[in-house]
């Protein structure tokens, strides 16, 4: 219990004093995971949309594959990517190993299946009658897809948030691709692993608390953006105006 209490105190201390080492690690974590989330969303939403709105041979099988990849272990993604981008690998010339950019690539690959799968579910959750209504109102194919994406915005937000959560919380890719190099590729999760190994439990807990705080800020901001998209305020049915 002492360690936890000590960790909380230390976390507050580190945050309040804006400890430069900790701030650098947190910022790098945020930079890598947000970049990965952004890239994965830019791929998952259109491709997921394409899969949902088109009928093609093997569609169901593809969705099963995507859903299976939800469970891919982070270390497996790390290992495969390591073999690809290491100096002797086929993509070795890119020089991505042990760089933040390599970590972004790894986390992007890691979270694309879960984001894409949940985007497909989110779009499936929009009733067929909505799509018929939009077509009957004279929507072009593109206008229809855009409105359905907006209709599914909260469910798509969940997909993005979950993807971000998986990215910022993972250790496997960060460790194997990044290498936990201080001041260069050390992120919150690899730092926690290291400090715990060295018996610095208080600092580890402090870093864990900081990680959750970062996640909280990101989720709140994403929620605000999504509500802004609809230009209307959430009302509770049965409330004063509902």
């Amino acid at each position: 219990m002492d360690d936890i209490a000590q960790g909380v105190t230390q976390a507050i201390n580190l945050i309040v004093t804006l400890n430069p080492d900790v701030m650098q690690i947190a910022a790098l974590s945020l930079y890598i995971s947000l970049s990965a989330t952004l890239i994965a969303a830019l791929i998952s939403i259109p491709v997921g949309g394409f899969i949902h709105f088109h009928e093609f041979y093997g569609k169901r099988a593809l969705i099963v594959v995507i859903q299976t990849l939800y469970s891919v272990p982070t270390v497996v993604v790390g290992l495969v990517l390591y073999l690809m981008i290491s100096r002797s690998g086929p993509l070795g010339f890119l020089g991505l190993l042990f760089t933040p950019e390599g970590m972004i690539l790894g986390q992007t690959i890691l979270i694309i299946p879960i984001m894409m799968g949940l985007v497909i579910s989110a779009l499936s959750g929009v009733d067929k009658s909505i799509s018929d209504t939009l077509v009957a109102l004279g929507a072009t194919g593109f206008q229809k897809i855009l409105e359905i994406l907006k209709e599914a915005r909260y469910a798509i937000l969940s997909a993005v948030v979950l993807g971000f959560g998986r990215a910022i919380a993972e250790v496997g890719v960060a460790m194997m691709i990044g290498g936990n190099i201080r001041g260069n590729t050390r992120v919150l999760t690899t730092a926690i692993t290291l400090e715990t190994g060295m018996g610095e439990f208080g600092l580890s807990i402090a870093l864990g608390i900081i990680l959750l705080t970062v996640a909280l800020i990101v989720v709140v901001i994403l929620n605000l953006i999504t509500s802004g998209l609809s230009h209307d305020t959430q009302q509770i049915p049965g409330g004063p105006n509902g």
Partner: protein
Amino acid sequence: MIRIDKLTKHFGDAEIIQETSLAVRTGEIFTFIGPSGSGKTTLMRLIDLLDRPTSGSIFFDGRDTDGTEQARLTIRRRMGMVFQKPAVLNTTVAKNVAFGLKFRGVPDAESQKKVQAALGLVGLPDVTDRRAVTLSGGEMQRVALARAIVTEPEVLLLDEPTANLDPVSADLIEDLIIRINKKSGTTVIMSTHDMIQGQRLADRIGVIMNGRLVQTGTAGEIFYQPGGRDIARFVGIEAITGGMVLENTGGHAVIKAGDSCFEALTDIRKGQRAALYIRPEEVTLTPADSSQVKTSMRNQLNGRITRILPYGPYVRVTVDCGFLLTALITRRSCSELGLAVGTEVVAGIKATAIHVLADER
């Protein structure tokens, strides 16, 4: 306005619409009536170009609607459709109504004015900023109607617009349909399984049964001269009996059915079999022992009451007079005449109230 030529639609092996041809005139209210599952919705979706037919053509204002998606979109934008179960998008009422205008690139200021006018027309001027999903069923249906008319369509398609509504909301919607039709000259094509509604609203009615358009005509023609046994049953004619034409002088025929002879108007010639259709509300009943038996009636049948069923302010009385005859009379006259199961009665039917068709059997 809309001409349908030999249209069919299959879903897998099922033939939902069987070769159907039809012309809907500009400015009329045309109503499809038919039982649930008869293909009304499928036909309406084909007309709105939401689905493509398996074979046959639909002409809009003389133009074949078959073509690229872009060409079909251009035609579809001249129509508006309201579905049986209105779907609203999770945003404000005003934005829901504005979708059609937004898709057509109408500027915001103009759009807002039109939306407000459309919501005023349907009697919902004060809900613009409310979230559409919090509306009641009747309000949602009115929003769906406002959304369809705000683009000033030339053809308005309404699929069972009042099927899920309470009577008050249904009346409101019906009034609106008539007003829109009269005010803007909009051609209205609607579907209903409610014959009474069809009668109230429609200039012409098309009866659909098992994916086939079996009869087209005015309400009077459909209700008093149904084209066949199934249609007769669907429009509420229960007393149907078969007989033989004994003589026919200039369309005034005597038909023998069972032990009784009927006088009726028909062109069916002597010696041929005929089916008799009688609307229950055209049958009068008088107790057999009463002195009030009317002599003006050409057709008098003696029988015994076998069943009395309440039917709103009316009662349906089934009389066994060799065949089963149903009479629809008011509750009040039923009790004033002292009718009960077992009472011997005289049933009277005017010659003009009997509809005769060549026997299909």
